[in-house]
């Protein structure tokens, strides 16, 4: 790959040397400190140098007199953070949505939770918070006490006007069989064709980022784990991994392999869940039942290794909480072997079954360039031919030592996304097999220091749904100063909003489920 040779840091340095400060090795490969307005120039330079430049997240910080903004950007081979600051009493900054369309949601979130005004971003209204949330109070600011916010009274329910004409607005959610989670999508249809999709997020917004600021690091591991019940091990690892980066501790090799096993078991059960759920969305209930039947042994394995069916709670700062018994390893391997034997049958269904092809092929097609521009991650990006997998790009834990294939399809439709997951199930089994065969001996945990020094760090990992991003800032006390989580669904959602337009209303559920949406992740 020619792209991998781009040295984005020196390009930025050469072009904007006198205007920005570059701190190498901080918050990824480098942190670029900018003053007012210059963050756009840095983004422009990066976009010119590397077409794969995409936004990962925008972190808003309360720095006392100022509000800090961290633009986390990913290029083909580097991770760059741009710092900007705005005064608290006049928190205005230029938007970057016109440069990177994928930043739209991130900007809305910062605007809603921290009160930064992005000039040029056309959206208004609450993004995550309730409609009754009082004006001018921003929960992530330090002076806002979680319990003392008084909501406005609910507006009186107005008389509904009957919808007339061909354009009918269908509300999907908050309670809807296609969504396991409450989230609202107002879909306008003309006949059967979707003309507009308006999302309303925040139904599962529980304020976890704020809550983690008032709990200790140890408590936070369990709190962030409960961001999502499906990819819980990934969230726990994201937090623990970031704290370990601030502490600069290195976990023992056995712990690295055990973490890989836990994360891959998590991916296995999540992918089987989605593959089955997709069957439910296209009215293929038998497929759903079969997948979930074969998912149960994986749940048993999670219980075997961690003691709990859903929340493994295995990750802890300095390693893992429990070792795998040697006597359990054969059982894990036989269970996985049984699953492996069933895979050809499922793959054959997903690739050849006529009614699945009729419902999934050419549905929700996302081109490679759009996938890059909108900042897609995970299986959605890989199905569009955009080879991004944190396990390969920036190996963490033992992934650098374990051979595995990166699954990439080029069709970019729902069918390709499901097939990426189908193939990844097999890769996950291979990874677990390899990890168990090459399990190093030695301790599975070290005593990490309890006191976290002042510092900040970012951590990226490949959750089942894609790249999961954690940012933690510590202030030397027992509690973190700021915890920022950017979840894969948050990044992938724009794909659905873009591809649903112009397709049939019947294509909305399969297109939607092909993102493997997780709103408890998205809203936090």
């Amino acid at each position, binding site marked *: 790959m020619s792209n991998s040779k781009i040295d984005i840091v020196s390009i930025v340095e050469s072009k904007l040397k006198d205007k920005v400060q570059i701190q190498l090795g901080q918050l990824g490969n480098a942190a670029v400190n900018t003053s007012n307005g210059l963050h756009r120039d840095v983004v422009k330079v990066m976009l010119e140098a590397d077409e794969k430049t995409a936004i990962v997240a925008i972190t808003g910080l309360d720095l006392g007199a100022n509000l800090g903004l961290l633009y986390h950007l990913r290029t083909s081979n580097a991770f760059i953070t741009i710092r900007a600051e705005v005064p608290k009493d006049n928190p205005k900054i230029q938007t970057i949505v016109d440069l990177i369309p994928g930043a739209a949601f991130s900007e809305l979130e910062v605007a809603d939770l921290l009160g930064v005004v992005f000039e040029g971003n056309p959206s208004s209204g609450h993004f995550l918070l309730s409609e009754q949330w009082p004006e001018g109070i921003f929960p992530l600011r330090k002076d806002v006490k979680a319990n003392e916010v008084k909501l406005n009274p609910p507006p009186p329910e107005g008389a509904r006007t009957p919808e007339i004409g061909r354009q009918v607005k269908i509300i999907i959610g908050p309670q809807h069989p296609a969504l396991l989670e409450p989230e609202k999508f107002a879909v306008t249809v003309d006949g059967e064709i979707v003309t507009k999709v308006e999302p309303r997020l925040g139904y599962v917004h529980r304020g976890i980022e704020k809550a983690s600021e008032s709990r200790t690091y140890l408590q936070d591991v369990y709190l962030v784990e409960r961001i999502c019940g499906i990819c819980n091990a990934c969230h726990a690892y994201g937090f623990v991994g970031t704290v370990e980066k601030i502490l600069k501790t290195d976990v023992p090799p056995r712990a690295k392999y055990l973490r890989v096993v836990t994360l891959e078991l998590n991916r296995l059960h999540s992918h089987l869940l989605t593959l089955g759920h997709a069957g439910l969305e296209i009215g293929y*209930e*038998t497929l759903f039942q079969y997948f979930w039947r074969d998912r149960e042994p994986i749940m048993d394995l999670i219980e075997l290794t961690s003691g709990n069916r859903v929340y493994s709670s295995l990750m802890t700062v300095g390693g893992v909480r429990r070792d795998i018994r040697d006597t359990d390893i054969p059982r894990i391997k036989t269970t996985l072997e049984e699953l492996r034997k069933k895979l050809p049958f499922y793959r054959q269904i997903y690739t050849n079954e006529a009614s699945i092809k009729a*419902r999934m092929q050419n549905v929700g097609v996302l081109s490679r360039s759009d996938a890059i521009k909108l900042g897609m991650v995970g299986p959605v990006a890989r199905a569009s031919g955009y080879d991004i997998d944190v396990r390969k790009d920036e190996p963490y834990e033992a992934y650098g030592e374990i051979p595995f294939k990166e699954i990439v399809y080029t069709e970019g439709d729902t069918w390709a996304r499901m097939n990426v997951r189908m193939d990844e199930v097999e890769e996950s089994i291979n990874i677990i097999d390899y990890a168990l065969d090459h399990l190093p001996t030695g301790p599975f945990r070290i005593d990490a220091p309890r006191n976290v020094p002042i510092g900040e760090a970012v951590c990226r990992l490949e959750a089942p749904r894609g790249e999961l991003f954690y940012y933690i800032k510590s202030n030397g006390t027992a509690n973190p100063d700021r915890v920022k989580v950017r979840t894969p669904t948050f990044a992938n959602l724009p794909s659905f909003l873009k591809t649903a337009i112009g397709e049939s209303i019947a294509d909305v559920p399969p297109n939607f489920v092909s993102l493997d949406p997780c709103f408890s992740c998205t809203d936090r």
Partner: protein
Amino acid sequence: MIDFTLIFRILVFPGFTFILLLTLFCDWVERKIEARIQNRVGPLVAGPAGILQPLADLIKLLTKEDIEPRDAKKTVFKIAPILAFAFMVFALCFVPIDGASVLSTTGFNGDLIVILTFSTIASFLLFLSGWASCNPYGTISSARVLTQFLGYDIPLFLFALTPAFIAGTLSIFKIASIQTIPFIILAPWAFVLFIITMQAELEKDPFDVPDAESELVGGLETEFTGAKLAFLHLTRDVQIVFGSALVVELFLGGPYGPVFFGLPAFWYTLWFVLKLLAVVVLTEYITTLFARLRIDQVLSANWKIVLPASILSLMLTVALVTWVYPLVVL
């Protein structure tokens, strides 16, 4: 005396009560088969092997609170479900079950057309009930019901004409009784296509677009509660029994079969129920083994494949009846 027999025939056997129980039984068979294919057990605790599950569902729905939404078109909303159910049961009354139909022992020429019309009216009433609930999901779902049954009614009628042509009559009673060789052997292509069309007409997978749960919540039933919902469910179930009964009468030789001893009516009923169950099992297999198609795919399948096939089938039948069958069988 004759009056009492007629009343008994209408109300108990083979009329209303029998049809109702048969419907509930078929519902149970369907749920059990679906569950078994999906590696589950299915209803188990209500009665032996869960056989009373549909009855429990029915009683529960009948005793629940009945809510009328503020926006609903009240009269249609109230009447349409029960009327649809009534039309379906009425249509089944013309089908010979124990060797004779419920109302008249021999039927009349043209009753095949009458019962197909009744089932169309029932589908239309289902559409009306969805429309009257004034719910976006219900409205879209009932629009789909209308598009689908208008499309598939034509090929269904044409396929039903195939056995009628071979038998040379439009009386369902005569079509059934004339089959010394079941028409499934004489016209197997028509049987296969009739089953597929029936699947679409009954809105079962892969053609169940009107109640696509993932898009339309409860479909046209979304707003219905209590007794009205019970009647909507019953209408659907009776439709399935009706469709299967039609297949039995037109292609499988109706209720007729060997009589070993005693009353022929008993044996005829037995053969009818067994053949009916065979058809129900077959259609349920198809239902569980396919994903749901999209409405445009369902419609283009109709206009591009099923409708031309039905015309071809009719032409083939006419040719065979005129030139081939007289030489071979009849």
